């Protein structure tokens, strides 16, 4: 694993948009740190102790609630608060050198999502067979430099930008994607079906299947997490252009929100940009 260090320049923003009465999106950016300072030792090669000092992780989460009568707003809020509580309680900073530890760490991140799913059912009620109750998407990235662990449910998205090329890390969990993955629909058929965009997996919904992945980032990369209020109204090309041109994470977020509003603003829009600034 590389020893290069970076400064993380992260910023998040949410906007109600132009057509919705409430904002059902939520986001959170947190740092997690574990500091162990070596004060004195008789061990001659003390590098192992130095490796433990100042480990730091970053947690980025966006969630897009669905369900009337403030249900969606409560679902996304419950998901984020539950997730943060679980991670604070149960997930340790992981140094990335031990594969068994890494799998355990990934299971803990998934466990946090399952716990949030359970809390939505418990606190906001079972959505029942019709799946009409409060539910939420959730896209989470835990960055333990240089590795970014991604746990994802629903149709919010995580991207990363490298050398001017935007790559999508997540796959939408919608009915359309679900049926295309099974070879039932072609892309053309999915485009014509109104239900193709319906969520096939969400926290609080009858189906909740987190997908898990990771990517090793490099200095100069930018992470982007967003709800579909951005991607439905702003093209990937325009997103790329903004991320490449922005001087910092805050201006990137502000410009992308403006672009979503200029593109119609038909939904709440929420995003997090995190730039890996060479240190």
């Amino acid at each position: 694993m590389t020893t290069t260090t970076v400064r993380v320049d992260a910023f998040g923003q949410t906007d109600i948009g132009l057509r919705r009465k409430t904002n059902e999106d939520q986001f959170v950016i947190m740092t997690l740190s574990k500091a162990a300072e070596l004060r004195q030792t008789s061990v001659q090669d003390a590098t192992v102790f130095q490796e433990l000092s100042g480990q730091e992780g970053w947690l980025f989460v966006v969630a897009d609630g669905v369900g009337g009568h403030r249900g969606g707003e409560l679902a996304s809020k419950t998901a984020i608060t539950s997730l943060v509580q679980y991670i604070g309680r149960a997930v340790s900073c992981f140094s990335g050198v031990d594969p068994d530890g890494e799998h355990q760490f990934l299971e803990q991140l998934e466990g946090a999502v399952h716990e949030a799913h359970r809390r939505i059912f418990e606190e906001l009620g079972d959505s029942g067979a019709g799946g009409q109750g409060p539910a939420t998407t959730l896209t989470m990235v835990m960055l333990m430099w240089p590795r970014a662990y991604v746990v994802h449910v629903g149709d919010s998205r995580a991207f990363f930008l490298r050398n001017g090329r935007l790559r999508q890390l997540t796959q939408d969990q919608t009915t359309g994607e679900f049926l295309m993955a099974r070879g039932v629909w072609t892309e053309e058929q999915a485009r014509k079906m109104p239900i193709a965009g319906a969520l096939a997996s969400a926290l609080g919904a009858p189906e909740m299947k987190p997908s898990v992945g990771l990517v090793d980032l490099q200095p100069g990369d930018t992470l982007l997490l967003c709800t579909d209020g951005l991607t439905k109204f702003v093209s990937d090309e325009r997103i790329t252009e903004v991320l490449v041109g922005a001087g910092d994470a805050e201006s990137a977020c502000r410009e992308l929100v403006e672009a979503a509003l200029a593109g119609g603003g038909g939904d709440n829009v929420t995003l997090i940009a995190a730039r890996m600034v060479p240190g």
Partner: protein
Amino acid sequence: MIQKKVCMVGVFGTGKSSLVQRFVHSLFSERYLSTVGVKIDRKSLELDGIPMTLVLWDLAGRDKHEDITVSYLRGSHAVLYVADGTRKETCDQLSELRALARDAAGDVPTVLALNKSDLVDSWMLTPDYESALAAEWEIVRTSAKTGAGVEEAFLRLARAAQAPKRAQS
């Protein structure tokens, strides 16, 4: 529970993700979606009465923009190399990929899946070429589309990962 990390390595478009989809979810789709970074899936199974979980790391394939990221291979217990039998050039890069992977993963058990075996009319590997490959690799012909050979490829690796010394002797 015993967990074994298995990495999928190969050139882009050889069907690594499709093999995982077939093995884990019994699904297949013709649609091609390139993997970005690593996608992780798990498959629980029982070998000789011993339960184990394969943690499958489906690595983005090597393409003209990016090579494989070798740091993903660290700590692997086994590697499944995947080549596309209808594109001989995907086999020609195997030795190079193996050298890269060995640097990171060490000398762990491997299997080579010659994928897309259902495409008989487009198959580009002559019997001689396959024999030459078989001298260097443990080969399984697979088809993510029909499922042929898929379970065999993963189970061979699982068995070898469970008893690595025996598998490599």
